[in-house]
C-alpha cells in the first residue's frame, strides 16, 4: 500500500503523484470515473497500475488516498 495524491493537471487530466518516490505522472485511465462511483484501477502513462478503493462520489481534488500497487513500471 502506498500513499498517493491525485490532482487535476493544467489540461484537466488526472495527475498521479507518489510522494515517497517523487513520481509524477498522468493517469491514462481510471476504472470508475462516474458521478456515483470513482476510483478502481488506475493506469499510468509510464505503464504502472494502482488500485484505489472506489468511492461513492468523485472527491474534491487533490486528494491523498491509499493505493495498492498492481503493476509498477520500475
Amino acid at each position: 500500500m502506498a500513499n498517493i495524491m491525485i490532482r487535476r493537471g493544467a489540461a484537466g487530466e488526472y495527475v498521479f503523484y507518489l510522494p515517497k518516490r517523487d513520481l509524477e505522472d498522468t493517469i491514462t485511465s481510471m476504472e470508475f470515473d462516474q458521478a456515483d462511483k470513482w476510483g478502481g484501477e488506475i493506469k499510468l502513462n509510464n505503464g504502472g497500475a494502482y488500485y484505489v478503493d472506489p468511492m461513492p462520489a468523485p472527491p474534491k481534488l487533490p486528494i491523498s488516498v491509499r493505493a495498492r500497487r498492481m503493476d509498477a513500471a520500475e
Partner: protein
Amino acid sequence: MSALTREETEALIKEVLEVYPEKAQKDRAKHLAVNDQSVEQSKKCITSNRKSLPGVMTIRGCAYAGSKGVVWGPIKDMIHISHGPVGCGQYSRAGRRNYYVGVTGVNTFGTMNFTSDFQEKDIVFGGDKKLAKIINEIEGLFPLHKGISVQSECPIGLIGDDIEAVSKKGAAELDKPVVPVRCEGFRGVSQSLGHHIANDSIRDWVFSRDGKDVKSEFVPGPYDVSIIGDYNIGGDAWSSRILLEEMGLRVVAQWSGDGTLAEIELTPKVKLNLIHCYRSMNYIARHMEEKYSIPWIEYNFFGPTKIAESLRAIAAHFDDKIKAGAEAVIAKYQPMVDAVIAKYRTRLEGKRVMLYVGGLRPRHVIGSYEDLGMEVVGTGYEFGHNDDYDRTIKEMGNATLLYDDVTGFEFEEFVKKVKPDLIGSGIKEKYIFQKMGVPFRQMHSWDYSGPYHGYDGFAIFARDMDMTINNPCWKILTPPWQKKPEAEAIAKAA
C-alpha cells in the same frame, strides 16, 4: 566547433565510460543520455535520484544541507540550531548569499551560526539536556527571535535523541514555535530528501500547532500570492517581487529568501502559490493545494521570453485588471530588454554553454541564454528527480547532453570533447575548469553577483556572461615562452 550529432554524442558518452570497471560502467551509463525531444518520459532515457557510486567524485550535498542550508536557513527571524558537532553549521554558514533586510543578531539571524557543538560526552550521554539549555540561552540572548528550528546533524539520528520532546517542551516554555527537523545528513541520496523533510516539518510544525491551524488577524485580499522556492540569492526574490507587485498582485510571503515566520504562517491564506524552485518546494505546494485548495503554478523569471510567458500565465489565474497589469509590466520593460540584447547579443551570439547545477537552474536558465543568442549544449542536475528531467527534455535541443549526478571525471571529459565557450556550475568545479582555460560562472551563487531573476536581473546576467566569456585573460593563458613561433609570426604580421 559546430554542435555534435546524435551519433557523436552517443560515442562520446561511450568513450568517457570506457575507463570505468564494468559494473560502474553499467550503472553510470543509465545516468548519461543524449536528449531526444520526442521522448515523453525522462525515465526511458535517464535514471536519476539514485545513490552515488562509491569511488566516483560526486558533487552532491546531504539532507542537512537541503534543510538547513536551503529551506530553513533563509527564514531570517528564526534561529536555526545546527544540532550536533560544530563543523556542519560552521562550514555552511552564510555561504549561500541569501540576502535579507534586518539587523543581524538583533531581529534577524541569517548569517549567524548556532550550534550545540557536540562533544564525546554528548554522544555517550545524549544531547537532549544540552538542547534544552541552548533553547533557553537563545531566548535570553536573542529575545526578538520569532522561533527556533532544530536542524539535526548525523549523530542525532544515530544516538536516538528525542529532539521532538525537547522541542515541544521548549515551545511551551517560550511560547514560540520550536521545530524539530529530522534532516540527518545520511538520510536519502542527496540534499533533495532534506528539502522534502524540511517541507514536511513546516507542514507539521508551522502550519498547524498541536493539530490546530495557526490563528491570525490577517485579512486576505483577492490578489494575494506567495513566492515559493526563491531563496533571494543576491537579491533574486526582490527583483521578482517588484514585477509581481507592479502587475497588481500582493506578495504575502517569500519562501524562504528574506522570509519571516509570520509570512510562512500566512501562506495558507493566499490565492495562488507561485513556485520557482520546483524541486525543493513542490511538496508544500501540493500540501497546500490539497488542504487549503490553493492552486500552484511553476514560473520562470530567467530571461525576458520566459518572464513574459510566466507573467501571462500567472495573470491568467486572475481577473482582467491583473492581465492588463501583466501586459503593462512587459511593455514597460521591453525597451530596457531591447537595449540589453542589442548591447550583448552581438558579443555572445552562438556561444555554447554547459550547465551542471541543482534544483531548477539546469532548465530554467536556458531561456536566459537563448535570449542572448547562446546555446546550451549540455545540462544536468546534482539531485534532480524524474519529474525534473521530464521538464528539461522539452527545453533542451535535440542531441544535446544530459548528465545526472555527473562525476568529476565525466564532467571534465565532456568539457574536453564538447569544448563549450562557458561552463555554469559551482565553486567545486570553478577552478578546475578555469585552469583548463574554459570561462566559468558559478550558477549557484551567481559568482558573487546577482540578482539574475526578473528584468533587472537579466541585465546583470547579460553583463556577467559577457565579462566572463569575453574576458581578455583567456587569450593570455599560454605563457610567452611556450607560444609556438608560427603563431607569433602571424600575430606580428597582423
